[in-house]
């Protein structure tokens, strides 16, 4: 197709929108709402995932050994645990280290109180491995495995917290996916109606085009362009709102819930938008194209 043909078609696409202002506006508004919600849910899920991940990194399984287990036996157990696919990393805490950490934590301001214990380490049999998992969901199967190892006395785990976190994240994911799918369908339906009205309004012109010898593509393209422009507008508007809104919301949450600052580790806007922008644009253009294509196929049998 020639350049003049393409520019004519694009111009007609814009004209269709201008002719059909209110329907176009309604379609843009629906897609905007759809992608806005998508953006919000995505930001929540992405941040929640991030928070869970940070929390998970802190969740460890602690493995204690029977009294009198040799260092060699503990090293062997450590190697076996480290070789497991669920394990991200392990850390050996010797009895001395365990006591140092304990002192640091509980006798920080009054070191003299701890002095009496120096000669006889109260945590003498507390040499242990801290095992960090790749995914908290694999925790229970790993714990079962470790319990079966020689010399293992006790395995501490924080299963409840970990599984609650990931279940909650999954729930948000499902609910938002369901809402977004419904909104997508509504958007496709509305665009398709807008295009149908446009086709109805320009019925005569389309008839003339066909008689003059316009190719199917030339007759159809302005309507597809119209749909895509609506989709594009419907994705750019919410992205702009979300971009500015995101920072505001995060700084508000952080100032409001100051005590939780250590726990609430939010993603920077840039990182969220790195995914959100292309996905939203593709979604908007996709909805626009799909909605108009369905209608053009149905009403424009050229």
């Amino acid at each position, binding site marked *: 197709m020639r350049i*003049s043909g393409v520019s004519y078609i694009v111009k007609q696409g814009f004209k269709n929108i201008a002719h059909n202002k209110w329907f176009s506006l309604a379609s843009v508004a629906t897609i905007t709402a759809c992608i806005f919600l998508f953006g919000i849910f995505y930001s929540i899920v992405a941040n929640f995932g991030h928070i869970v991940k940070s929390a998970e990194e802190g969740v460890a399984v602690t493995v204690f050994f029977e009294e009198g287990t040799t260092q060699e036996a503990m090293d062997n157990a450590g190697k076996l645990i480290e070789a497991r696919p669920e394990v991200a990393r392990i850390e050996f805490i010797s009895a001395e280290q365990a006591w140092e950490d304990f002192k640091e934590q509980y006798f920080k301001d009054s070191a003299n109180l701890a002095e009496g214990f120096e000669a006889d380490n109260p945590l003498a049999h507390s040499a242990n491995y801290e095992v960090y998992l790749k995914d908290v969901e694999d925790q229970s199967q790993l714990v079962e495995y470790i319990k079966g190892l020689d010399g293992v006395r006790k395995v501490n785990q924080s299963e409840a917290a970990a599984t609650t976190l990931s279940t909650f994240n999954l729930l948000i994911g499902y609910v938002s996916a369901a809402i977004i799918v419904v909104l997508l369908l509504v958007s496709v339906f509305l665009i398709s109606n807008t295009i149908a009205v446009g086709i109805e309004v320009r019925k005569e012109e389309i008839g003339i085009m066909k008689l003059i*010898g316009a190719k199917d593509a030339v007759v159809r393209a302005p309507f597809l362009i119209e749909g895509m422009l609506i989709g594009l507008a419907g994705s750019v508007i919410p992205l702009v709102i979300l971009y500015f809104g995101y920072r505001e919301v995060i700084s508000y949450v952080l100032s409001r819930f100051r005590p939780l600052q250590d726990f609430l580790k939010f993603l920077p806007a840039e990182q969220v938008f790195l995914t959100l922008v292309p996905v939203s644009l593709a979604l908007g253009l996709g909805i626009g194209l799909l909605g108009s294509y369905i209608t053009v196929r149905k009403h424009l049998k050229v």
Partner: protein
Amino acid sequence: MIDLENVSKSYSKGQPAVKHVNLHIGRGEFVFVVGNSGSGKSTLIKLLLKELDPTEGIIRINGKDIGTLKHRQIPKYRRELGVVFQDFRLLKDRSVYENVAFAQRVTEVPNRIIKERVPEVLSMVGLAEKYKAYPHELSGGEQQRVAIARALVNRPALLLADEPTGNLDPKTSFEIIGLLDKINTYGTTVLVVTHNKDIVNAMKKRVIAIRQGIIVSDMQEGEYLYED
């Protein structure tokens, strides 16, 4: 130019609109097709435009059987035809210039040629001065001239006019037919469907009369007298 061999067209309900029509129209001819409403004249035009396919028979245009055209070949075929209607069918939101240019834009003619060709054809129909006007600012005759310019801008070999004077007063009707006659002298084959007796009788051209879908007479220049 136009060859119809035993062409019939019947709609799903009722009588056939065109029955066993055999017809030959040569290149450069000017032909009237006359008949009352419902006689099958408009069906004939639709068959030539390939808006309809015949139930039976073969239609050849320029020697090509248009029944064998694939769907995607139809646009190219239609570019060889120009068509004018009783109700002009202009785009009300576009100027005279844009209405004519429209026929070239939608057939992907380069802008350079559009700029050359549109003024040329507008001056041919006598509307060079009014290129900026909108259809509602023009008289019926002027609107039909714009429609003729649009039909001619892509230089068709065949011009089909379906009741082109149906909405016009007698004086303007003669002007429009005169314009079509002028176009014919430049070499374009012209087929005019009409039931305007005065024009048919005055022009003394070949006249094909249709009644109830059947060609009842086909007379050469000046032989036919159109009566009620």
